[in-house]
């Protein structure tokens, strides 16, 4: 075997080895996920029925339900998105299309990237100080949603900037060259072209908002709520808090409730995500 053939053989072995490692990695992740789903389904599937979906929490496990958490999560996500999406996209448009790329811009960029990595409990403390106490919003669903929007805004800003940056510069030049203003260029070309990627960022951000628990526990979302949120001032709970509450009880029956709650949380997340994905696919072709 000459040196060239030897080299080629080595490279081929490396190629195969890497492929095997990659497949093993994928299988591991999939197995864990399936194990989790099967485990949760085995515990909780039997508990899901109309009574469970429409009942408020109770000290009797078989009479307890998740309607308060489901409604709380739903309204919180809607309000959070209504606040974070416009502000986040607006901030990204400013930074990417209007703002100058000088040291201030870079400083802001680094800080936003850091904000995206700040532990959620810190946002909870900020929300407690700013919204609950200083703005006297109390433990309302509005205070919770505002806190949550701060948490997901960096994710939306970063992904929107990436999406705008991916639009070829030729499009901007073409639009300016026929006399379009910056806003016309953004509104007619940049946003429509980058919309699918922006939506992907929003999906990720909203999924995160649905699953986060810590910041809302910090600002004092309740665990025992026997009413649906009526307005922005209402006290509220969310699914993850309800689940957490049931898991921490000693009785086996409540653990089954928790498993059923987890299933509903997954369904809820998948439902919201699939709406976003359908929208994205509609607009990307």
């Amino acid at each position, binding site marked *: 075997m000459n040196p060239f053939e030897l080299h080629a053989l080595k490279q081929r072995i490396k190629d195969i080895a890497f492929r095997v490692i990659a497949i093993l990695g994928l299988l591991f992740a999939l197995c864990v996920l399936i194990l989790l789903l099967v485990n949760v389904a085995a515990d909780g599937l039997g508990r899901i029925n109309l009574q469970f979906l429409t009942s408020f929490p109770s000290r009797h496990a078989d009479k307890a339900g998740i309607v308060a958490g489901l409604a709380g999560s739903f309204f919180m996500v809607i309000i959070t998105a209504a606040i974070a999406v416009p502000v986040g996209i607006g901030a990204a448009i400013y930074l990417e299309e209007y703002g100058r790329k000088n040291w201030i811009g870079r400083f802001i960029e680094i800080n936003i990237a850091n904000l995206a990595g700040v532990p959620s409990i810190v946002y909870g403390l900020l929300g407690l100080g700013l919204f609950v106490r200083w703005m006297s919003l109390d433990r309302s669903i509005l205070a919770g949603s505002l806190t949550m929007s701060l948490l997901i805004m960096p994710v939306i800003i970063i992904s929107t900037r990436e999406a705008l940056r991916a639009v070829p510069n030729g499009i901007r030049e073409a639009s300016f060259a*026929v006399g379009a203003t910056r806003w016309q260029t953004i509104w007619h070309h940049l946003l429509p072209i980058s919309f699918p990627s922006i939506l992907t960022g929003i999906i990720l951000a909203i999924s995160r908002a649905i699953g986060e628990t810590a910041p809302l526990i910090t600002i004092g979302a309740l665990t025992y709520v026997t009413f649906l949120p009526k307005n922005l001032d209402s006290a509220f709970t969310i699914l993850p808090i309800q689940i957490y509450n049931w898991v921490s009880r000693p009785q086996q029956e409540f653990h089954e409730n928790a498993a059923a709650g987890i299933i509903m949380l997954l369904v809820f997340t998948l439902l919201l995500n699939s709406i976003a994905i359908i929208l994205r696919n509609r607009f990307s072709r």
Partner: protein
Amino acid sequence: MYKVETRDVNLFYGNTHALKNVTMGILEYQVVAMIGPSGCGKSTYLRLFNRMNDMIDGVRIEGEVLLSGKDIYNGGTRVEEIRKKVGMVFQKPNPFPKTIFENVAYGLRINGISNKKFIEETVERSLKQAALWDEVKDELKKSALALSGGQQQRLCIARALAVEPSVILMDEPASALDPISSAKIEELIWELKKKYTIIIVTHNMQQAARVSDKTAFFYLGELIEFNDTKELFMNPKHERTQNYITGRFG
């Protein structure tokens, strides 16, 4: 009076002195070619006339740039108005990801024109002027991205023509195209010069010689020589020009 003119223009990118005291005047209905090695400032110079350099951070411009005798860098001039009078075609065809019709109609729509008949007529006229009408008249609703590179470039020319500019800037419009498409663009320039003043940047000296009335040779940000095309190629006054056009450098 010159159609477009620069007087003692200096342009800086940060600390780089990209254009040095460029004074030049171009008459109406002339085709002027800009030649010179890469980085000599010819594209930057071209972009003075529709203020495309404004988009770049850290650009500083001194001197006067006149369009029909009016300084376009004067505080009172709206940059969008200038760009409607001075159209531009870029090196890489850059159609919008919309239909062929909407690409050409876009310039009209942003001007607030909504008269359907007028828009349709203008789109047809512009596509005819850009020698594209016969190829696309039955598929105006198709995406512009489905066209070939050469067709896309002519669509971009039609898009520029639709807003009825008086000057057209072309930044190496044929360099990304095959020889046949490239020849079509050159024929088009011949046709367009009856109604428009055209400034074209090109790396192809044969092309400059074929399409232009006058040629400007740039080197390191300076305008070295500006003369009738024939004269400049047959009888260059400066050694640098001679070296460049005979292929000894650049």
